[in-house]
């Protein structure tokens, strides 16, 4: 699966970022830093989400502002 596309599946799993506590003290890390990663690799990863991130640019058209939004 590519990061260029958002998933549209149903939710799964047993919790969320707003309902689960932080890892308890002394627990093994769930991530591991790769010290060999380069700036180019990071920029490539960010480029891969460019089209998804663009959706959040938040432009509002004049037509949308002037339209009746409910009767």
């Amino acid at each position, binding site marked *: 699966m590519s990061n260029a596309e958002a998933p549209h599946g149903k939710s799964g799993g047993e919790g*969320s970022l707003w309902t689960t506590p932080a*890892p308890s003290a002394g627990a093994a890390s769930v991530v591991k830093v790769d010290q060999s990663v380069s700036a180019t690799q990071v920029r490539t990863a960010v480029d891969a*989400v460019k089209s998804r991130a663009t959706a959040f640019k938040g432009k509002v058209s004049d037509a949308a*502002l002037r339209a009746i939004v409910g009767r």
Partner: protein
Amino acid sequence: VTVHLAAPLTLAEFGAGDDPLTSLQHFPQGQYLKWYLADLGATTVLIEPNYFDRDYLSEFSAFYCTSSAGYKNVCQRLHYFSIAIDRALLERAIADDDEARTRIRGAYLGFIVRRPIPGTPFGRTVLRWYPEPPTALPRVTNPARVYTCNVAGLRLEVEGLAWQQQDQGVGACATIALWTMLHSSAFDDRHVVPTTAEVTQTAHKAGLSEAPMFPSMGLTAVQLIAALRDSGFAPFILEGELRGGLFGKERFSSSLASLIRSGYPVVIAGSLESDDSGHAVCAVGFRQAASNIPPGFLEMEDANTEFVYVHDDNLGPAARFRVEVVPSESVVATSATSPAPDSVTVRFDVAPTGPYVALRAVPPPQKHSLSLPDPTANHPRMIPTLLLAAAHQEVRTSPDRFHFLGMNLGAALIPVIGGRGLSTSTRMIRLADYAHKELGRILAANPAVLGPTRLALWESVPPMSLHLGVVRFGAENTPLLDVIYDTTDSAPNLRAFCYLAYDSEMFDAVDKLRALGVLEDIGARDLGVGIKAF
């Protein structure tokens, strides 16, 4: 001369002939409210025959008092309970008998104000939420507040958010949606909620509209924004990012969830599939989605949101709507003036550029045993094109900006943590609530870390804004990193105050990103003071 006369409080069995709701079943809203109350286990209705409602009085003075119909200015208020109540029990509760009072208050389901307007009788209504089963993914209803009623000295409380039917005289659906929005708990401390008549009047100030004020024929986004500003709020307005103003699911659900989690209800404007007419509703809650990340993937956690709870003046309060995704291939672009082919459910001047969001009313599994028609059966799907929310006046940063930052920073972190999948989610929160409630919950198992983390926020970080933007990252449902942003600045100057790492490797990952010198390139700038919350 006719004047109002004293009348006794009366009790009736829920759904019986003398329950006023029974005579209102020809309205879709009446059917919905009966279904909803039946699911809550309604058993008894207490009828207050004379109740002066602030909103109705405002509508009355703005419109109905000059009608030749001779409408009254007094309403009925109907209180519903989940236990059988007779006059003796009620009188004991009113006399402060502890046992009777506790029973009645515990069984209170909420109230409906019945306006003396035959065509649009449903006034301000607040009903309790459906009971929440134990779940790791609860309903998020942060905008809800507690409403207190007083009946002969008996205080009754219900938590919810006010809904009412549009009367088409003083308020259209957009007016009602905006009115609900301003009832949010987030605004308890500093604002007076305007009435529907005041919303309409503000929206028709000079230069804003050429349409007559009353009867209200609908409002534009510009008018809604003017009404919000006039009431002392900062508007957030989000247009769908796809062609035609449609929303993709990732942006729609993430934006909606972020705003509601922040305590801000959201007006959703769009069109109805049935006849392509404009409509506006107010989202007041959603069901928390779960993380479900494939390796290497950056997930917007709230994009998984499946259900939102909507106050729809055509239906009722807290109606459950499923967020559906319509494949763009299923739609043929047609002229807005040509008849829609059978295979086309909604008409567009131009074809959408991607799968888009539609909202369908879907009631939860029926809990009652009555034989009632499904009030959502013929309710058309809605195609959202605009989201509008009111924030505190000093909040200037849109959720779009936080999602943009979260997307870029999350994508940058993934290679640094060895290609592990990450999820991200955002909200706005008061500094005091973040330090007290959120850190108290998230670090409940780490008391040795909680105190130093809270102190670091006060002693190591430069002065922060009253409202914070929190961009959270995690894996396997577990929060690993919060980046805390200022909400009071403009987008080009936006800066993070600090970040809290809940995992030592995540702290090191941010250090690694800084060392690589890429933060500025990806639009994340400096991340502020690092706090070790592990």
